[in-house]
């Protein structure tokens, strides 16, 4: 009976990527789970030696899965593979029993070294023997799947930068990717509550064949704590709030786009960020030029700062024309060598 390895990630792209990167000379059977709850089911039934675990997943995330494993005293070793590279995230999973942490996207060499370090494989062994997968992952990947995965990685990088700057822990969600009619945009952004008011900054990015706008939307209730975090003294007014918006946007959007660009292997030109609106209702934030673009590919990420009442939405809006180029650039993620 060969060693059994479980890959737990909500992204089908990430599952396939990781399974391709495992050393070919390592004779293992690979099982897959889409979230923590599914992983726990499999761990109970099967004798799994090693699990690769993602952190940001729906239903049961990586942290909760590790906690449950401790409670149930499951012996399976866990290597966390995550885009969330905040120092605190790494410390937390280690304290929850994970034996190692790999940052997404991991390389073949990193995985080999890690497996070697923990005694799963011996020194270089060139005898070819492909491993078998129990679940057939030969499925079709949509642009959404791929974009979700690269956004996930970029999100983690950006959070780590902001976390370093502010000395806090940023809670990360699963990025939401949708092709939207512009008319659906506001609804899809999920801003409810008539009385809520928002402030937003927009920054444009252009690369060959790709155009996107990065919107950072803050609910007004976030400002007092944001001022506290950034060490802003004095009474908040419209100007000092622009200062806060600009600083957070610089720290969050820049690194996100940089990480995205690295994965797409392109360089973006950026515009100066512009304040879209301060203290306005959500339907006043995005209303201009409605007619000019019909569809948009939207990636939405809600960042929350732990122990502070700060939450902001980072929304990437790709123009319809960018979709073909994006598909092309992202195809490497799912190609077989």
């Amino acid at each position: 009976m060969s060693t059994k390895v479980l890959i737990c990630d909500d992204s089908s792209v990430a599952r396939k990527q990781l399974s391709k990167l495992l050393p070919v000379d390592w004779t293992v059977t690979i099982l897959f789970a889409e979230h923590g709850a599914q992983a726990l089911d499999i761990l109970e039934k099967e004798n799994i030696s090693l699990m690769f675990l993602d952190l940001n997943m729906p239903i049961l995330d990586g942290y909760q899965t590790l906690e449950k494993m401790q409670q149930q005293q499951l012996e399976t070793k866990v290597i966390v593979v995550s885009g969330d590279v905040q120092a605190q995230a790494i410390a937390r999973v280690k304290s929850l029993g994970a034996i190692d942490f790999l940052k997404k996207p991991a390389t073949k060499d990193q995985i080999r070294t890690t497996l070697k370090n923990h005694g799963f494989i011996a020194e270089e062994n060139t005898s070819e023997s492909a491993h078998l997968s129990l679940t057939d992952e030969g499925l079709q990947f949509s642009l959404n799947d791929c974009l979700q995965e690269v956004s996930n990685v970029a999100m983690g990088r950006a959070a780590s930068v902001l976390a370093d700057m502010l000395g806090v822990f940023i809670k990360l969600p699963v990025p939401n990717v949708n092709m939207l009619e512009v008319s659906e945009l506001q609804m899809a952004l999920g801003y409810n509550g008539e009385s809520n008011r928002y402030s937003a900054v927009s920054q444009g990015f252009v690369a060959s064949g790709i155009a996107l706008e990065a919107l950072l939307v803050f609910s007004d209730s976030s400002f007092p704590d944001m001022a506290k975090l950034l060490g802003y003294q004095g009474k908040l007014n419209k100007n000092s709030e622009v200062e806060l918006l600009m600083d957070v946007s610089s720290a969050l959007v820049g690194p996100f786009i940089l990480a995205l660009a690295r994965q797409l292997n392109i360089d973006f030109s950026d515009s100066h960020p512009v304040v879209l609106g301060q203290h306005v209702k959500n339907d006043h934030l995005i209303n201009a030029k409605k007619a000019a673009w019909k569809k948009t590919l939207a990636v939405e990420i809600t960042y929350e700062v732990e122990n502070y009442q700060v939450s902001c939405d980072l929304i990437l809006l790709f123009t319809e024309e960018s979709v073909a180029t994006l598909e092309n650039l992202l195809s490497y993620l799912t190609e077989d060598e």
Partner: protein
Amino acid sequence: MSNAVDEMLELHWLFDMIQTIDVGLVVLNTDFEVELWNGFMENHSGITSSSAKGKSLFSMFEDIPADWLKNKLNNVRSLRTPFYISWEQMPHLFPFTSYRPITSLADKMYQNVTLRPVSHVDGSIKHLCMVIYDVSDIATSKVSLSSVNVKLDYVKRNDMVTGLKNRTSLELAMAKHFLAFQGDSKINNSLILMEIDDLRQFHLEHGYSVGDEVFEKVAELLGESVRVGDFVSRFTSGMFAILLPNVTQTKTEQYCQGLAKRVASTKFGTSKGDIKLTMSFGVAQTSSADKTVEDWLSRADNALFTAQTKGGNCAEGAV
């Protein structure tokens, strides 16, 4: 050999572009000392590149908030990501004058500034680049647009002759008070409607433009006679309204009698000499019998009509 010459030439025109591009470029080392100072910076600051080089940015420009900018520059360096400064937070980081000193609305140059990390060949960040954009035109058009909006807003809410709040504003305020009363019937809100007696005769006698001068003076008198928080508005031509929160009807009627006396004894100065006039007053307090704001208003209007039919120069309370 010719290759080296070509490279030299390329460097030359690249540098020429940096020098003449209409954007400010400054490169600082980690001690915030200037390493590059392009033509834009030379010309706008009056400091030549050779005298700027090696000097601390903050020693040359003492008005730049040093701690504030250093904090941002340090963030750029440690986080390796650009930071942006908008003219809306810091309009004039560098004390430059506007490009068009005569025809531009701005005296000083509004600037957007980008702070970028510059990576060294070994990958570390040893230099920081400041890019200064002149955004005076954008800024002045946004500022003037918002000042027009403020004006528009004023026109929407106020009467242009007297400067008092207009009828639309009054109706909004009444609706608010009416709602509050419906929520808590212990809140007494009184509405006073008042009109100059024999208005038609008044206009025939003095003409409309002198009429306007008088209304302006009446508005002044009303403004002086109320408490802070009372709402005075011009309802129609010679008709005014006051909304008094937290006052009983009896008190309001007494107040109106006093006001009637004061109006009657005042000489309203105009360009055609002093004019004397009297006014009538109708008072209505919010009542649980009112189903709508209009009911409340029409009770005040009826009371005013009663006062006028009694010969004017008096106050009547609504039933």
